[in-house]
């Protein structure tokens, strides 16, 4: 009887050992990807574990509320450095995020223009700039004319570092928005700018926020630019035109000192720094969560 071959006949024609080998290879490869994924997590886990082990003993409320004390005295803290880091990140974000997102939007929407290509190229170059160069540059442009170190200078230096990072990630995220959405908005009679803001930017927002957070996390730990701009401060800063303490600077100062007491505080400071970045990430993700889940992520 011609026609349809029934399944059992097909199965018996398959070479059983070949099939078995394919299953085994499949299982092995999947297992390998699990192993590699775990390996990738290992450095992070290792660092976190070590940080917690070394710094946890210093995690008491006084660490967050007290000022740095001279060596030997009990109860030193990094209150001014914690606030200082937050202030610097605030200034940096105020400069870096609007400019970066705006530039990224421009580069993505005006892809053909020479300005867009130039901006994209320069962003790539600036992304690779050593941060100490940014620090020296900020010193020359801001600190020297002002005559003194300041929080403003530090914030501007960090903000300038954020701009190329945010520009590139914003551009990538906007390019992921399907062109059909753009056309749908234009066909309704939207102007180009309204299409960009109300539709494209909104759709790409979860991805853009992720990019912004990566930039904030990146500059939160930068020490070199702050050496020449914010400079550090043993006391509270009362104005943005004064030098200001920052966690990376404080960690640096304590870590290169010869005192064990200060070393332990440096570990604790590092733990707090990572904690701050984590909290910023969580808050921003929560605040910009789409009601319906990410459209583009």
């Amino acid at each position, binding site marked *: 009887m011609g026609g349809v071959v029934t399944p059992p006949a097909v199965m018996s024609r398959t070479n059983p050992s070949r099939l078995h080998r394919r299953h085994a290879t499949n299982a092995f490869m999947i297992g390998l990807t699990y192993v590699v994924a775990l390996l990738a997590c290992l450095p992070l886990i290792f660092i976190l574990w070590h940080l917690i082990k070394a710094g946890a003993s210093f995690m008491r409320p006084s660490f967050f509320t007290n000022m740095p004390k001279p060596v030997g005295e009990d109860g030193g803290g990094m209150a001014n450095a914690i606030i200082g880091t937050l202030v610097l990140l605030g200034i940096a974000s105020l400069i870096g995020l609007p400019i970066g997102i705006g530039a990224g939007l421009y580069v993505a929407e005006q892809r053909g223009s020479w300005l867009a290509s130039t901006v994209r190229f320069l962003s790539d170059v600036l992304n690779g700039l050593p941060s100490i160069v940014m620090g020296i540059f900020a010193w020359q442009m801001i600190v020297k004319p002002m005559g003194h170190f300041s929080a403003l200078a530090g914030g501007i230096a960090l903000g300038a570092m954020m701009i190329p990072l945010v520009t590139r990630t914003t551009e990538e995220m906007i390019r992921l928005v399907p062109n059909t*959405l753009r056309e749908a908005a*234009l066909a*309704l009679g939207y102007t180009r700018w309204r299409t960009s803001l109300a539709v494209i930017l909104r759709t790409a927002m979860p991805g853009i926020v992720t990019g912004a957070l990566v930039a904030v996390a990146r500059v939160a730990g930068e020490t070199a630019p702050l050496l020449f701009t914010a400079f550090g401060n043993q006391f509270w800063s009362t104005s943005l035109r004064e030098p200001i303490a920052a966690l990376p600077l404080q960690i640096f100062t304590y870590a290169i000192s010869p005192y064990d007491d200060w070393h332990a505080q440096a570990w604790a400071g590092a733990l707090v720094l990572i904690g701050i970045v984590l909290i910023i990430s969580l808050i921003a993700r929560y605040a910009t969560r789409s009601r319906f889940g990410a*459209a583009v992520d």
Partner: protein
Amino acid sequence: MDVEPCLTVNQLNAYFGGQHAVRDVSLTFGDKQVTAIIGPSGCGKSTFLRCLNRMHETVPQARVTGTVQFDDISIYTPGVSAIAIRRHIGMVFQRPTSFPTMSIRDNVAAGLRVRPGGMPSKRQVDEIVERALRRAALWDEVKDRLDDSAIAMSGGQQQRLCIARALATQPRILLLDEPTASLDPLSTQKVEELVYELRSDMSVIIVTHNMQQAARVSDRTAFMLAGELVEVAPTKRIFTTPNDSRTEAYITGRFG
């Protein structure tokens, strides 16, 4: 033609850079009629449609020559705003294009934001949204979840949402570019019924590669081939006694 024209196209040529996609097409569309444009893939019918609301020029290196007369305005005259034209000539695309970050209600009301006169009051918006969704035969399915995400619906529902969105602004002309191409048969039927009923309020121009669909919903049909307009005639006549041999060959399935 014995009806008022709503759109008159004269010697329209459209180019993608060097590629000549629409060749010297002249055609008149009747008011409050459904006109279908049929033809094989790549014949330029979608490009032609996109010239009617000046969407073709959104593609880089696109060029258009010729005139399109809409009422007393020649839409390609320098100085005429393409955006203003698009607010009176609506368009629905082949694939559903609901805005993913907006709710169903906000999607339907999306076109109201740019109306002359601005965004209406909340009560008016709700009325307009309900009316548009009823017309698109979607109201009963979504009336209890207007604030839910627009993309949590099936493809057929989303496409009807896009139609509702286009209807909400009450355009004079509605352009449909193969609107049922990606839909299941039931949704296709609903959309076809809708298109057939829309003629009482507006003119509809529908591009389709489905000849049976054209025969079902349209009053007049135009056949395009390789960028040229071969023939245009009342639908009944073109499908029974076409004038041109190429039309006959296409309709009888000898190519396509």
